[in-house]
């Protein structure tokens, strides 16, 4: 009897712990007060509309979007051929490569960020934008390789051979037969990569320069100076954006099959 009560209770507590803060933030973003506070003081949409007016938010949003889309696309461009090679050919170092590609997930972001700054950006004098792009590509690559590998594993290789025997080149068979059949996995990898990149803080923290910073970093910076509910409003908007994307993906692609 106690057990039957205990399990749902634990579940409820975990859910409150995980999702609770989200509701607090959403509530706070509709506040009419001047400081970030809960419970909110009154109701207004002014902080939500302020988000769209703050110039630095608009800039950093553009940077984050560029990194999330560009970084994920370039990770896929590297990850798809890599996954394909590892799944189809017995390569001598494929396990090592697989491990190295996964490393950015395992190594704490703060270390990746510091290492990139100290041994990559400073010595070569790389521009911050390019450094961020490289860093985000590397961070998303593990997801790209994993998700695409999973969908390639379900694809029989004799399909490509059939295409070749019907007159297609090997490369043609990849584009005509392999790619169309793993597009669900690729889209799933894209969404996962996009969200990962967009929410990335520790690495981006080290790679911020004058005028170039990602949205989460900008929000941190903003909060150090101004403590108004606009950050909460922005957080809510981003959360709803993520939820929207994941729901759409699940609805149209069966996203959960790939992750």
């Amino acid at each position, binding site marked *: 009897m106690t057990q039957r009560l205990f399990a749902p209770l634990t579940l409820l507590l975990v859910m409150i712990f995980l999702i609770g803060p989200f509701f607090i933030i959403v509530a706070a973003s509709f506040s009419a007060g001047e400081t970030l506070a809960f419970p909110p003081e009154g109701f207004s949409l002014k902080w939500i509309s302020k988000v769209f007016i703050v110039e630095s938010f608009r800039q950093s949003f553009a940077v984050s979007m560029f990194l999330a889309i560009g970084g994920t696309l370039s990770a896929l461009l590297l990850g798809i051929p890599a996954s394909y090679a590892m799944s189809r050919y017995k390569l001598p170092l494929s396990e090592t490569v697989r491990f190295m590609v996964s490393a950015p997930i395992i190594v704490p972001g703060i270390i990746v960020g510091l290492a990139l700054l100290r041994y990559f950006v400073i010595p070569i004098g790389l521009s911050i934008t390019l450094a961020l792009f490289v860093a985000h590509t590397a961070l998303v690559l593990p997801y790209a390789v994993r998700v695409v590998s999973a969908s390639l594993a379900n694809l029989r290789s004799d399909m490509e051979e059939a295409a*070749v025997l019907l007159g297609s080149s090997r490369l043609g068979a990849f584009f005509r037969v392999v790619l169309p059949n793993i597009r669900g996995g690729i889209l799933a990898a894209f969404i996962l990569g996009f969200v990962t990149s967009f929410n990335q803080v520790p690495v981006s923290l080290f790679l911020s320069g004058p005028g170039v910073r990602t949205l989460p970093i900008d929000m941190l910076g903003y909060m150090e100076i101004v403590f108004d509910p606009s950050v909460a409003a922005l957080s809510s908007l981003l959360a709803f954006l993520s939820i929207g994307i994941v729901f759409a993906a699940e609805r149209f692609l069966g996203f959960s099959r790939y992750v």
Partner: protein
Amino acid sequence: MSDASYLFLDKLSLAYGKTIAVKDLDLNICKGELLALLGPSGCGKTTTMRAIAGLMTPSSGRIILDGADITRVPANRRNIGLVFQSYALFPHLTVFENVAFGLKLHGLRGEELTRRVEDGLETVGLAAFANRKTPELSGGQQQRVALARSMVMQPKVLMLDEPLSNLDARLRLEMRTELQRVQKESGVTMIFVTHDQVEALALADRIVVMRDGAIEQIGTPEEIYNSPVSSFVADFVGFENVFAISDGRLSTKDGADIALAGTLPKAKGLAWRPRAIELGTGPFTGVVRGVSFAGGTREYVLESRFGSIKAEADAKLPGYPLNSELAFDMPVAAAAPLQRFG
């Protein structure tokens, strides 16, 4: 070029890394022939087929097709069809698009394309399914799509990997007839790979029995069925009682040498089908250790000086009960002499 060497495998050797799969294989295949490559798994039959298709590069030897050396010709320029055991259809395309795939690659468009695809689907009786996605089809229908997809290319050689093994018994018979019809109507040279002797005997004009990467015997179904050259072939085509001959005597597995009535032929071994064993009379005795009713016949397992003997008798005759003692004969005249043993 004579018909006798439309497709010619010349000392073909195939290897996976250091593992040799096929060694110095010589084989002549005639135009319009329906040939079976028969053997247990691992005998090299599938590897040979893949090499003919160009999916695998020989380590040595040549493949000559229609007078041209195609050993180094890439697979996509050979125009050899292959129906995979898994069918390997393209799941993202419709039946029509699957069949059109190769024709489109060869530049066919518009009405000509539609006509050829529809003809192909007509031939395999799937005209009504053109707009279906292939995963919606049954296994038998998927195979027909795969067959049509290869056949519309008018391939020089059509190969099929275990074409009947994924089908249930009723479909198997249907598909067998279908394959024979398609082959006769189109006159295509057809090679199929199978581990099932019944399939090979029923379908092929000629059978190549393979073992450990080499040819054990080539012959018509009748020759293979009636006159196996070796104990391996005999075992494979249903001679259940196979014995070696040494010094004019039959030697059994447990070491006993047994003299048979009459002179033994000059051979390394003798093989009897279960039905060649005469029950009820004869110089030998055995104990019935197993009886099973098989419709027209009863199948017996006898324990005797020869070891275990498989015999068969008409089911209309009264049966011999389990554990009863029984006289039997293994007439030399009814045995198939084997030129090779082991």
